[in-house]
């Protein structure tokens, strides 16, 4: 067993884990944060994307022990209480999800995309940036619209905060 301590959605958590425990298993099985999903074994589908120290990471390809000391944000920690994050709201508004299984990873990837590329992202860039997230339901059409709108909304929120 190995001990690991990290911050997950703002809370410090410590546990003794088998070293072969993946970060996604740690989140799902130890912390019961089941919003982060597993859709493949080869780091391709992106259903497991979480933020590690502010960057999108595939939690199925990261050992829990590798996240020692890191700050983890999962889909459960994205909303501000009952107020949805603008990207979450955009996915609902633009019907960017059907079965919902890839959705947490999509949203976490989209937020990371905006964090890196800003609020004005065009369709081609969004499609390219979604390379590591597979959706079988939507054909991506509405996901692209949602990310575009969510990016703009995140910018709006930022500007409001800056003005205040």
């Amino acid at each position: 067993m190995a001990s690991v301590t990290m911050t997950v959605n703002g809370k410090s958590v410590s546990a003794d884990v088998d070293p072969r425990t993946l970060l996604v298993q740690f989140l799902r099985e130890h912390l019961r944060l089941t919003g982060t999903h597993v859709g493949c074994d080869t780091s391709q589908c992106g259903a497991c994307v979480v933020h590690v120290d502010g960057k999108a990471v595939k939690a199925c390809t990261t050992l829990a022990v590798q996240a020692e000391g890191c700050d983890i944000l999962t889909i459960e920690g994205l909303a501000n209480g009952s107020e949805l994050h603008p990207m979450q709201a955009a996915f609902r508004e633009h019907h960017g999800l059907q079965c919902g299984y890839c959705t947490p990873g999509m949203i976490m990837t989209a937020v990371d995309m905006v964090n890196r590329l800003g609020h004005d992202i065009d369709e081609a860039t969004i499609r390219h940036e979604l390379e590591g997230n597979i959706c079988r339901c939507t054909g991506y059409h509405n996901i692209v619209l949602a990310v575009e709108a969510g990016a703009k909304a995140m910018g709006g929120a930022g500007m409001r905060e800056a003005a205040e």
Partner: protein
Amino acid sequence: MYAFDYHRPTSLRQAAAMLQKTEDAMIVAGGHTLLPTMKQRLAQPSALIDLGGLSELRGIEKKGRAVVIGAMATHADVAASDVVREAIPALAELAVTIGDPAVRHRGTIGGSVANNDPAADYPAACLGLGATIITNRRKIVAEEFFQGMFDTALDEGEIITKVSFPIPAKAAYAKFRNPASRYALVGVFVMKRGSEIRVAVIGAGSSGVYRWSEAEAALAKRFSPKSLDGMSASADDMNSDIHADSEYRAHLVGVMARRAVQAAVAR
């Protein structure tokens, strides 16, 4: 995954000592090749020695006429580095073609070079730029470092610490992705530095990354895509799989080489 012990050394010396004394131990950097392999139970290290705690391996700096990149620099680090983008933009552009954004946040240059996957991208840049791989023990030039599929000059207990890329006059990378995996079906890195021309090919050859000497000779006369018109690599010794047989790969080597030269010239 099979069970293993996990170590997180705090110094390079400690890491090397652990690697030396633990039978069947492996280094894990970003883990983006190793962990999927272990998940499929195709690798069974007794212990993983995680270099994640060694911040001294992450730096990117310009040193004289070279860009020196720490082994633990992620693909995203390289892609975003002002140093790299200014000195060797082709290298930053290559880093952006690796995997996807989340993979680039974890995958490292050291891991990629050490693994020498015949469909990875960095080996093409290393060979194409004439890089030197620096380990905790020595310096190894790219020609000697890459020794065939998944095979390198690294000795047991040896750890890559940095990769030094001499700055070229012109360079570019053109990649044709495997439609499924997004690895390089064919990747061609071209470079001109004075009279030195290099054309390094990844993904295609059955022995991993190699230099395409015919194309280099043609480009030595004139560094222009026209010099490669009608040229395709020999289909002998090319990889063949469901996505591309050897003939198609050989053809793509020519196409990607022309596109790379075009991009390099246009820079």
